[in-house]
């Protein structure tokens, strides 16, 4: 077989690097930014865009893990509870033991990994649908988080994590570190999912777990890995959450984040049925959601209206995807 033919086959096997959904999303975000720039002159300034990018980071970062989980045909609705556990644990360590930046990140990521491991073991080896297990562990994690909180809030958190925050310490050349890290991890995950056998296995499992198993994919280990990875990313994202907040952490931390992350993933074009999806789309989805949130506030509208637009965007994004799939079938 000639090199040209091999290259052609490789081209056919791999999906296109950027899906139609992502192009449309990028276009929609660009149009929104343009409209907002016209509507409120303050929008396209560093003082407005930088907080937007910082606020996008945690959702997009957890979204990378959630994308992989959903590609395998699963789902994880416990990430909100997991964010609560990781952030309160880390905040307590920052206040009580005055740990450094590295130790705090390590602690948070390790805690997230353990929580992800619990999910992964139960789902991969318990043979129960992921949504039921993670509904259960969501309650367990919230219990754990509230117990660590004790009775009130965590006060007087030092600025150790300012490296990830909104302030001037959190930026290099004007780019927020939190967003930069998210971007790098997204890029790495994009490469891993698209160009390595290990990454392609996730798609195989989501397409047909039985067929994947017969083809030699170690399905249970791969599924376990997907949830552990999500847990690790939750740990890192929790550091971002603490850094973006004030010096006080209250018990509502993480609440509702699981739905925000899932919204970003499905707006990004990942199929909830599994087997199809991309982390690039998830990043764009998170950016779109955050643009809507920040745009609604800057236009002086009621901030809760942003949820209405998020709902509409989910319907439009997934609806467009459904129509395209229908067109493909009829061709």
């Amino acid at each position: 077989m000639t090199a040209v033919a091999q290259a052609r086959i490789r081209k056919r096997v791999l999906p296109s690097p950027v899906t139609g959904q992502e192009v449309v999303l990028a276009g929609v975000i660009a149009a929104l930014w343009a409209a907002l720039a016209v509507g409120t002159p303050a929008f396209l300034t560093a003082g407005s865009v930088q907080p937007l990018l910082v606020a996008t980071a945690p959702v997009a970062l957890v979204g990378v893990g959630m994308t992989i989980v959903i590609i395998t045909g699963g789902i994880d609705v416990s990430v909100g509870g997991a964010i609560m556990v990781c952030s309160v644990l880390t905040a307590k360590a920052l206040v009580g033991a005055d740990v450094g930046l590295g130790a705090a990140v390590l602690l948070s990521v390790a805690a997230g990994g353990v929580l992800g491991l619990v999910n992964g073991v139960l789902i991969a080896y318990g043979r129960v649908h992921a949504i039921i297990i993670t509904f259960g562990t969501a309650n367990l994690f919230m219990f754990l988080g509230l117990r660590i909180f004790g009775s009130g809030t965590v006060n007087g958190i030092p600025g150790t994590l300012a490296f990830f925050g909104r302030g001037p310490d959190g930026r290099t050349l004007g780019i927020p570190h939190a967003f930069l890290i998210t971007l790098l991890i997204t890029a790495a995950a994009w490469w891993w999912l698209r160009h390595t056998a290990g990454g392609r296995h996730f798609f195989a499992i989501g397409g047909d777990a039985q067929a994947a198993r017969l083809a030699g994919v170690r399905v249970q280990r791969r599924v376990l890995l997907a949830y552990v990875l999500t847990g690790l990313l939750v740990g890192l994202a929790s550091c971002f959450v603490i850094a973006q907040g004030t010096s006080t952490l209250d018990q509502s931390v993480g609440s509702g984040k699981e739905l925000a992350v899932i919204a970003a993933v499905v707006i990004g074009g990942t199929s909830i049925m599994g087997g199809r999806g991309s982390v690039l789309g998830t990043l764009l989805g998170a950016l779109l959601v955050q643009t809507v949130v920040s745009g609604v506030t800057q236009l002086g509208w009621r901030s809760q209206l942003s949820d209405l637009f998020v709902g509409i965007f989910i319907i439009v994004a997934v609806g467009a995807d459904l129509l395209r799939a229908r067109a493909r079938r009829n061709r």
Partner: protein
Amino acid sequence: MSRAVRLLLTQRIALLAVLLVVVVVTFFINDMGGYLTAPYDFDYMSASLISAVPLAMLGLAEMLVILSGRGGIDLSVGAIVSLAGMGFGFAYGEWGWPLWPAILATAGLGALLGAVNGFLVSYIGFPALIATLATFYAYKSLAIVVNDQQPISTAPVQELFTLSKSVELPLFGRYVPDVPLGIFTFLLPTVVAVWLLLARTGYGRRLYAIGTNDVAARWAGIPVRDTRFKAYVYAGLISGLVAVVTVGQFASARPDAGVSGNGMALPAITIAVLGGVAITGGIGRVAGVVLATLLIVWLNAGILLAFVGNEGSQYQLLALGAVLIFAALLNGLTNRKYGGTQ
């Protein structure tokens, strides 16, 4: 012996009944030993049933959509409770409608909101998780915006609190504890109606059929889309009724009634799954959902007495999560060993 184990594992209702007895007896023993902060007796158990009303009704609503199969689930029931509750607040509290038309209109509003879900899922083909996630956001937002974040608690709405008071039963009422009124006005009629719908009508048989096998049902000439659509409408209708109950309980139409904190959808799905409703559709019974509700309500009520301060509400989360995972793993085991739960 092995027969008894088999019965417990394969008959979800038997398992739930045993668990229920274990929970109640455990708390009675604790009570006698003086370990609880207040007496756990029949009066207390009866009074705690007030929280069973919305939980069981929403559990039944989730059961209907989960039964319909193809990943059926409704994340938006809590948001429907919020939005329909605001509608009820306006109609009854602000516009001075009489009570019955206001309740009917609220149920109708709930059914309409459910119909949006059903249309998206059944006719357009959205995955249920996504469609109801989107409408969850939309309804939640509308409920908050519609009255500028303000609750409606005018005089007529406040007087509705009588809906949730306890009453003495007629005839033999002196010998048994007083029971919350909501049980008779809302919960029992809903339970009976859903049971009749599922067990005694053609619609119920069609719903089980499309949940068990979508394709086979279509080839058998069943109007699959219409049947699935109606499941979401009924779920919305029940959520609308829950909205009335919730407004009565709070004595106020709160814009975040169904979505604050953990929301109402997640506990409702938990109750349905615990009650033996298979998440893949086609399997589930009304009695299971009712028993699961009683189990969780009486467990929670006991936990509240076993701890001081807000620790009790935290341990309720632990109990709910542990029971759900236990039941789910048991389902997995049963499927492998005996070929399924009934």
